[in-house]
């Protein structure tokens, strides 16, 4: 066994075969890189080690007991046995224990087909069932409108508990009771949480499940479409499971998007509108006061004629064309082309965030995921990331929870992440600008008075921000005008000191930035709406003449 001179790698032997693996890797990961899958339940990437399911045990030379590969760090010269009768028996034994009190109701379990317990039993389990004692049946219960808990199917990997604690920082799930009476449950029996459904997604069994997918189509009968969540600007990758024209679920397991496996409640459960009978799914033309289905050709012809009539009668600018922060860049560009064809200057969209002012003032580049992960200080002003950009909130909380960065929040909203903030300044609504003035070196007395906080708050915050070296400023939609300008330039307003400052506008809509990029140069929305205001209120539903 040679020590690699670079010490980036080391050599271990697996069942007698030497293999080179990254130094410092977890054994289970190192083996996976060699194409050796070690069965596991409690191990999950990015979650704290657990070592409770005992599925991943391996024999390591010189160790008296079998060792969990999910907590063992590889060492040069380590000799590991993973495929011996001892290990095979052990795996069978663990699975047999897990199945002992399991209801074995796979035919009606919605996890069936993508259940890790099923898969592992199929690969490593016993053939004959030796358990002939009584099971302890537990009825399944709804623990929220979105999630139900079929506790008897649980294998106690605690992924759900850790996901809720660590990814979400919510802590709504817990182990209840002890020993064989243990169940995963909630405080008070009801789930008081954000309903992100991540606990359901990581559950290897059919224990925590989506109510909306209960007795839904079997997973293998779903068509899965990778797409992007259409709610907020974070743009999580989701996989929509549909059958026919009905969407049944939205998941991110084994996700490849920037969100990895994270989704918030909107991306997870906010899809029922797609299936709504009230949706307009085909062109309709109003005739005699009643909307009637029409062909696309008829509809387009109708619209073109009406717009042409209006332009002829009242001038091209009597027609305004509106894009949106909720549609793709391509759609917005197409809308701009229509406006061009109609010869109108009245092209606009309704912004959810004053990006024009922000972009004009911003004193550095926009913060990336990497900037957030490596910041020593994160300052949120006038917003609540958990509401505005939940994935961003999740990303910024990770280094904060690990103690690697400090969070500061100043907002008139009781932003939920404030409980992790080193300092939270509760502002009077509209107090953002004066606070920023104080942070920029203005009188803290004056600043505090109008911002609705104490002078010491302003001073402490200023000191913390000035001490930062890698600062991310998150600017919420409560910042307008002067506040927005100051927030977007905070880096250049703070006192002396070398620091790397990046900015994140907490825009709310999924394509605010795209709409600004494609349509931002157009006429201000308020002007368009102002000019058209009387027209809109005066007009009655049109009847073809």
């Amino acid at each position, binding site marked *: 066994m040679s020590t690699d001179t670079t010490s980036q790698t080391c050599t271990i032997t697996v069942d007698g075969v030497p293999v080179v693996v990254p130094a410092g890797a977890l054994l289970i990961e190192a083996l996976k890189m060699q194409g050796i899958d070690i069965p596991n339940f409690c191990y999950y990437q990015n979650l704290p*080690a*657990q*070592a*409770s*399911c*005992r*599925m991943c*045990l391996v024999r390591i030379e010189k160790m*008296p*007991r*079998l060792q969990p590969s999910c*907590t063992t760090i590889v060492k040069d010269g380590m000799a590991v046995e993973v495929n011996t009768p001892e290990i095979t*028996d*052990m795996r069978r*034994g*663990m699975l*047999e*224990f*897990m199945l*002992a*009190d399991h209801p074995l109701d796979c035919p009606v379990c919605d996890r069936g087909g993508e259940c890790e317990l099923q898969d592992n039993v199929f690969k490593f389990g016993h053939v004959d069932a*030796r*358990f002939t*004692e*009584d099971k302890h049946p537990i009825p399944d219960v709804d623990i929220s409108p979105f999630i139900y808990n079929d506790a008897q199917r649980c*294998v*106690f990997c605690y992924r759900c508990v850790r996901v809720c604690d660590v990814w979400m920082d919510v802590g709504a799930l817990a*182990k209840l*009771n*002890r*020993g*064989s*009476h*243990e169940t995963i449950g909630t405080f008070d029996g009801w789930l008081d949480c954000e309903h992100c459904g991540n606990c359901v997604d990581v559950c290897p069994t059919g224990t925590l499940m989506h109510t909306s997918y209960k007795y839904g189509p079997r997973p293998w009968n779903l068509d899965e479409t990778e797409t992007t969540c259409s709610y907020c600007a974070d743009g999580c990758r989701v996989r929509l499971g549909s059958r026919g024209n009905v969407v049944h679920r939205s998941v991110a397991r084994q996700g490849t998007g920037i969100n990895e496996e994270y989704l918030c409640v909107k991306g997870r459960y906010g899809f029922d509108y797609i299936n709504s009978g009230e949706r307009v799914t085909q062109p309709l033309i109003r005739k005699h006061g009643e909307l009637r289905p029409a062909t696309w050709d008829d509809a387009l012809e109708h619209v073109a004629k009406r717009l042409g009539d209006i332009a002829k009668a009242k001038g091209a600018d009597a027609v305004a064309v509106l894009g949106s922060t909720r549609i793709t860049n391509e759609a917005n560009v197409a809308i701009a082309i229509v406006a061009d064809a109609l010869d109108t200057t009245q092209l606009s969209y309704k912004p959810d965030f004053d990006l024009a002012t922000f972009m004009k003032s911003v004193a550095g580049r926009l913060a990336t995921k990497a900037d957030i992960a490596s910041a020593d200080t994160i300052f949120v002003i006038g917003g609540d990331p958990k509401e505005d950009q939940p994935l961003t909130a999740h990303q910024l909380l990770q280094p904060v929870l690990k103690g690697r960065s400090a969070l500061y929040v100043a907002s008139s909203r009781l932003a939920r992440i404030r409980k992790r903030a080193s300092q939270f300044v509760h502002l009077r609504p509209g107090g953002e600008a004066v606070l920023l003035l104080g942070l920029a070196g203005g009188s803290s007395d004056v600043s505090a008075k109008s911002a609705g906080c104490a002078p010491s708050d302003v001073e402490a915050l200023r000191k913390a921000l000035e001490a930062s070296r890698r600062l991310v400023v998150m600017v919420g939609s409560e910042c307008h005008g002067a506040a927005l300008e100051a927030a977007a330039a905070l880096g250049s307003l703070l006192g002396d000191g070398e620091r790397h400052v990046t900015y994140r506008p907490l825009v709310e809509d999924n394509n605010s930035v795209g709409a600004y990029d494609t349509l931002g140069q157009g006429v201000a929305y308020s002007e368009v709406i102002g000019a058209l205001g009387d027209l809109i209120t005066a007009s009655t539903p049109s009847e073809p003449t």
Partner: protein
Amino acid sequence: MADPVKVVSKRFGIPDSHTLDVYLQHDGYVALEKAVKSMQPAEVIDEVKKSALRGRGGAGFPTGMKWGFVPKDSPKPKYIVCNADESEPGTFKDRAVMEFDPHSLIEGCLIAAYALGSHTCYIYIRGEYGWVQDIMDVAIREAYAKGYCGKNILGTDFSCDVYTHPGAGAYICGEETALLNSLEGKRGHPRIKPPFPAVEGLYGCPTVVNNVETLATVPWIIQHGGDTFRQLGTEKSGGTRLVSVCGHVNKPGVYEIPLGYPMKDLLEKECGGIRNGNKLKAVIPGGSSVPIITAEEAYRVKLDFESIGEVGSMLGSGGVIVMDETADVFESTFRLVHFYKHESCGWCTPCRDGGDWMEQIFDRISIGGGRSEDLDLITSLGRNIEGKSHCALGDALVWPITSAMKKFPEDFQRALDRGKKLLREPAAV
């Protein structure tokens, strides 16, 4: 043999031995004064190493070596945690120490704290020992009042606080890392080791966890020297220790014996023999978690770590459970299976699910539902639990079963046959 020297129990039986005044009349706090005024911390650790003192909580780990694992240069605070959770069936010696000699434990904690550079000791007391905690609390108050605890102990610049903390009734919280979780206010699950408590223990700081008796032995070692203590026992098992004897003997109780003392003498001299002149059947020599031994083995074994190992058992926590010929080892084992199943913390698969299954099998056999294949099944399940669980409770569930099946097969066979008997009886009516 001359009357054995008493170390931990030397003040037992003296009227008001739990008070500071009486303690001071009998060498009380002499060792603490010697340590803090005339010894370097490293010298204290060396003395304990020399004594060959091994932990009295169950695992028998050399105490001096454990103390040596605590990193000297860590900038973090260090903690001394006394394990007074004593919940192992058959074990009740720590309770005697705390009831009759609480100051010896306080003194032991303080000497350990001095040796390891700690300023805080926690004594984690079994929840059911409410009155014992009261005794400890009174003793601690007395010690504070006289300057043995708190700031500038005995006028030196060594300061140390001592607190008690009650458990909530879980056996698993005697496992040192589950204890630390519980002390931190978390659920009592054992932690992943490594890191060991000596490096990352209470609140992530270096921590020594020692049993009550272990710590209460330290003052004597410091006062009389490690070598003197070691010579009281055998070469490898130094000193004396407490054993708590219960079951079918005439005089059950807590006795101090030198290590290497014959079990036969303990049963016959100290404990006055087996009750009603009955014959001895079996002994569990070190608390319920260790393998059971037969009468024949008990009569030839000596109470030291090595000799007990030769008959396939352990000294464990010093709880000696004695059973005479009237006992049914299947039934006594069933009791223990029920205990371990009930006390499984539920963290890991083999102990949580295997324990429950095991109990159900014993339950079925006990009511006459035994099957010929049950013994093989029990053995096989035991193999899947032993050595695979997250903490030693899983092993503690299996050892009593496998040893009892091996050493008392006739009791298990009789239990298996109960059903046959039940079936025959109605026919005879």
